[in-house]
């Protein structure tokens, strides 16, 4: 009985997670309106034309290119800012770790929809040239990714006992830069990959900031596109969702094989 309840619970949850995706797939790839859906018509009208229609949209490729570049630059900025900080804190000033953990949580206090108001007060009036380029989004995306990325990097440093590694290498006479480049960084690849994956997922999904600053990224394109071509829009969204899901799963599994779990939330 107990086992039955457990499995009933798991099956119900699985249905909750899968059914909306199935409904989305049906709407996107089957041209039969839901009103006319009967057992007889259930197999009719399926085609992959909607996704082809989306793929033929040149703006889609432009928006995707923008989003991918944004992700790449955000990862670069995040890693440049946080890797040196995390390493130096861990090996030189470990007592400051709690402070840094708290500081990196701050971006959650000011969510995109709130910060965009502040940006309007400051940058839009004071330095409008800064917001002209779509890449002005990069620092803000790096900001919201920070709670995840810092924790992923910090967890990586803890997992390899970076301080002990540093002291061991130090006792052999290696200079600081050599230790970081040859000993610590190579052992951190797993957490760097995790940080990059989380950042990518965040950038590919962020809508509020891009939309309110009138930048065309993949999410803002999807909303506009869906309003003109409903089915192609849903097909595109489904494909993007599945690609993101597959990419994150691959990263999670790769990390698992190395014995690391991804605390995506950083708690």
């Amino acid at each position, binding site marked *: 009985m107990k086992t039955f309840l*457990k499995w009933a619970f*798991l099956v119900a*949850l699985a249905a*909750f*997670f899968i059914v*909306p*995706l199935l*409904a*989305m797939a*049906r*709407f996107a790839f089957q041209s039969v*309106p*839901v009103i006319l859906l009967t057992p007889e018509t259930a197999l009719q009208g399926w085609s992959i034309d909607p996704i082809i229609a989306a793929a033929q949209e040149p703006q889609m490729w432009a928006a995707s290119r923008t989003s991918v570049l944004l992700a790449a630059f955000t990862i670069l900025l995040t890693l440049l*800012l*946080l890797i040196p*900080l995390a390493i*130096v804190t861990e090996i*030189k*000033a470990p007592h400051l770790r709690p402070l840094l953990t708290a500081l990196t*949580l701050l*971006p959650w*206090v*000011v*969510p*995109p*929809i709130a*910060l*965009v*108001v*502040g*940006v*309007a*007060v*400051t940058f839009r009036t004071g330095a409008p040239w800064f917001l002209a380029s779509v890449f002005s989004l990069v*620092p803000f995306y*790096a*900001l919201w990714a920070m709670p995840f990325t810092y924790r992923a990097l910090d967890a990586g440093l803890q997992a390899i006992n970076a301080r002990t590694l540093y002291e061991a290498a130090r006792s052999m006479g290696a200079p600081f830069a050599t230790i970081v480049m040859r000993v610590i960084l190579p052992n951190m690849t797993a957490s760097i990959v995790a940080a990059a994956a*989380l950042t990518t997922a*965040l950038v590919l*999904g962020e*809508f*509020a900031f891009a*939309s*309110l600053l009138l930048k065309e990224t993949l*999410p803002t394109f*999807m909303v506009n596109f*869906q309003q003109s071509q409903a089915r192609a*829009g849903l097909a595109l*969204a*489904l494909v993007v969702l599945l690609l*993101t*899901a597959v990419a*994150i*799963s691959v990263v*999670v*599994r790769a990390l698992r094989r190395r014995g690391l779990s991804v*605390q*995506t*939330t950083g*708690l």
Partner: protein
Amino acid sequence: MKRIHPDTRIGLLVALPFVAFISLFLLYPTVAIVFSAFTPGGDYSVAGLGRALSGSYRQGFINSTALAGTTAVIGGIIGLTLAAVMRTLQRPRWLHSTLDSWSAVASQLGGVPLAFAFIAAIGTQGLLTKLFNQVGININDFGVSPTGFWGLVVVYLYFQIPLMFLVSLPALNGLRPTWREAAALMGASGARYWLRVGIPILTPAALGGMLLLFVNSFAAYATAYVLNPGGALVPLQIRFLLQGNVISGEEDLGYAIVTWVITLLLASLFLLTFLQRRTLRWTRS
């Protein structure tokens, strides 16, 4: 000339860019908002802050808090239960790795695609709406539509449950088997163990997880916007004021609302950090 210790130099070298980055892109805009909120029209006044909590904006805060609170509690309970159930199931193995990966994915899914999925499922033309109609139930009557309160709750649960699952796992793993064994040897029943030991130890972590869920859904914008751009939720009201299609002077109201949001989230995260400390202290000693 005074020499700077090399450690200090390295410390400054890595800390300064970080501090500059946070100051310029986070603190400067935030302080500007809060400052503007206290000086509507140029003079110091708290009138704006008062107005931000009255009329339709008060309703926005009530709706947003209710939505965030409801999804945090329901999502928290289901997510915690899921983690507890999975802990008792040794096999199948594939289920564990699949669920871990899926949760990492789904907890990030709040956004445009998720909103589309639920329009296709519970919208007026939705598959589930149609299926339930076949058996004579109109789910919209229960507020379950993409624009209704319970519809939004259902949509948000899609990312809240996996998020809670992920944050509950470490807490549940922090429950030591020897606690249960020690209690059993003392003659304590399973119920007594859970009531006096298990649940009290889990409570800070569970509350912390729910607070995180609260913050997460209070700030969520994309899903709500796609489902119902005119909804009376705080993030949507901020957008409305920001886009400037209202009479001049109303942006001061936007600053006031954002100031309240920041205050609320800051308080939640303070409480969250406090609860986490307690959890760590208990599970480590």
